[in-house]
């Protein structure tokens, strides 16, 4: 495994540090993805490739379109135009649940743990291909109890790995912000994804928990998965990412290794400036317009985060 990782990283060494650069072994490939809200182009990506088996960070200022791009890639939103493929399979007009079944699973910026289910039930929900989730067999426990037990064993293993086993029977709503992030990540692993997409895994996490969260993200790569994440925390980006993609105003404006991108003074000044610690969550027209107006009016003034 580890050898694969270094090989993959080595492969990236030859990739030019420029927007839309092509990679030796892309798991995701997209072209001309455009999404507009009202008259505003929220996403306008000419070409995008994500390398398999590495951790790629997606960064950029407020309203740069990162979350919208996430939504588009995973089928949670529909683009005006554009094509993209996962493992060579075209994903345009494929609904979100099918995207997830193909092995491309995402988490959310505002953690979506099901707070009225217990932690272990949250985990069980993640398992795929459950016989007990079919209407006609659900009523008969004997048809699904064995599979449920197997899923529970797997869930318990993951809970132990993410140090949530003590919380097993608690309602997920009682967890702290960081624990929710962990639970969401663990639950996503129940789907056994090839590509896991984390939307701001560090947002709202107690600093004490950050280091262990970082290790968990790294461990995802080390077991052979591809990770794509949106993040504002520059330390995290520098620490764990193998490749960085920078977005601004819907476009990819820079790409490269963390060192190269961080060193690019132009990138820092233009796109990371004062905004690097806030982001809007769910993109919609009003917020985008408000953002845009606010940015025009006062470049230095921070706009509040809505949900």
């Amino acid at each position, binding site marked *: 495994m580890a050898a694969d990782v270094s090989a993959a990283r080595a492969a990236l060494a030859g990739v030019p540090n420029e927007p839309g650069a092509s990679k030796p072994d892309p798991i995701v490939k997209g072209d001309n993805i455009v999404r507009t809200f009202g008259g505003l182009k929220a996403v306008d990506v000419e070409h995008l490739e994500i390398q398999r088996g590495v951790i790629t960070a997606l960064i950029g200022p407020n309203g740069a379109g990162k979350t919208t791009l996430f939504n588009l890639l995973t089928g949670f939103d529909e683009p005006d135009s554009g094509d993209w493929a996962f493992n060579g399979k075209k994903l345009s007009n494929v609904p979100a649940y099918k995207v997830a079944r193909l092995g491309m699973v995402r988490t959310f910026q505002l953690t979506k743990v099901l707070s009225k289910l217990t932690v272990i039930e949250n985990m069980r929900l993640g398992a795929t291909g459950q016989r007990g989730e079919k209407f006609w067999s659900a009523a008969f426990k004997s048809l699904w109890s064995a599979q449920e037990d197997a899923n529970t064993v797997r869930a318990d293993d993951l809970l132990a790995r993410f140090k949530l086993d003590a919380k097993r029977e608690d309602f997920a709503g009682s967890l702290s912000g960081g624990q929710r992030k962990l639970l969401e990540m663990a639950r996503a692993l129940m789907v056994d994804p090839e590509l896991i997409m984390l939307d701001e895994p560090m947002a709202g996490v107690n600093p004490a928990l950050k280091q262990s969260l970082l290790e968990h993200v790294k461990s995802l790569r080390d077991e052979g998965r591809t990770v794509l994440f949106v993040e504002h925390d520059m330390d995290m980006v520098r620490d764990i990412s193998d490749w960085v993609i920078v977005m601004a105003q819907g476009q990819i404006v820079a790409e490269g290794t963390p060192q190269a991108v961080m060193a690019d003074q132009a990138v820092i000044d233009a796109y990371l400036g004062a905004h690097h610690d806030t982001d809007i969550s769910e993109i919609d027209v009003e*917020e985008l317009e408000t953002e845009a107006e606010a940015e025009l009016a006062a470049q230095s003034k921070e706009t509040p985060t809505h949900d």
Partner: protein
Amino acid sequence: MLLTPSSAMAQATPTPTTPAAGTPAENPLVDGQNITVTLLDVKGGKGEPAPVPGVTLTVFKDKSGGEQIGTQVTDTKGRVSIPIPANGVYVVTLDQDTLPEGVELSGGAENEKTITARISGNNFAQFQIGAAVAEKVAFSEKLTNSVVSGLKFGLIIALAALGLSLIFGTTGLTNFAHGELITFGGIMTYVFNRGFGMSVILAGVCAVIAGAIFGYAQDKILWGPLRRRGTGLIAMMIVSIGFALLLRSVFQYTFGGSTRTLSQYVAQGRDDYGPISLSPKEIAIFVIAIVAIVIVCIAMMKTRLGKSMRAVSDNPDLSASSGLRVDSVITSVWVLGTALTALAGVLLALNQQVNFQMGFKLLLLVFAGVTLGGLGTIWGALAGSLIIGLLVEVAPVISIGGYQPVPASIKDVGALVVLILILLVRPQGLLGRAQRIG
């Protein structure tokens, strides 16, 4: 007692009616159990209805030609009052030969009416005179009439829809008690008019003021505290359902189940204005509704309060963070919204009659209007309501190859179907902004 058929269509019969010889000045109204008939020539709904004197009416027991109970000739008021011995079935016949020159029975020229007497006092019978049969009216005239009444109906809906839309826009509440706010306006008009003896106009003004106070009280006592508790929108919606049931039952308790009329402007004749015929009260309804809507729209665009209302409805969080007092804005919205809705009730009472569920019956059409135009937009609510009003009134008039897509007896169905279609095809409404839904 109103004996005019309410949906009289136009067909002029000659006026005036001259009393024949031997017409009694006034038939005494019998004290005990009786059958009373007042003959009025409604002249196809044009001008004031005129009494028809000098007509012989006879009452038989059980069937025409059976035991004769009594006979009388209509007086100058067009009235007869014939005593009957007990409860039972009676037949009243009208001698058509005694009708004055130029006055004819309409409604299939039926000269017999069967009455089942159950009341110890007056039992009324009704003959249609001068009311035309609808089939004879030209399609174009029917269309014009239905367009006019559709616009009138649409404007009344629009007032209520504006209220609903304002409240929904700022609070997010889908208010199922909104129909009862319309009823509130209607019943208050009746109370001020009949109870306190005010003129209908003054009573209407007072009812709107009462509506504003009712809106204020609702926000202070019910919705405001719920908002501050952080009650969810679905929970609030169910609270509004409970509130609707409560109000409706209280209305029925205090007002009774019957349908009542205001003291003035009840049966007004219509005058011709080119191809359209309108009664004065209908003109008043048009003028009042349009003026109210225009004032509200201008106020929403120009005044400080209006702008803050729109700001809150666009983005409550941002408005709060930019120093707007969201709570007081919402209170003003409740006051304005309920007052507007009460005005719709006043106009509805003026147009038709007052009943404890007059607003409830309108609720879905108001929802339809608001949804059609786009939830939370003023112009949308306005346009949507007018379309719904037209749809309800015009659709039954249209027949394609003898087949009526929307029969008159279920004319609301067309509007409800449109409501569903709009939700499916363009959930943000005709004028609403596209946003992510679901």
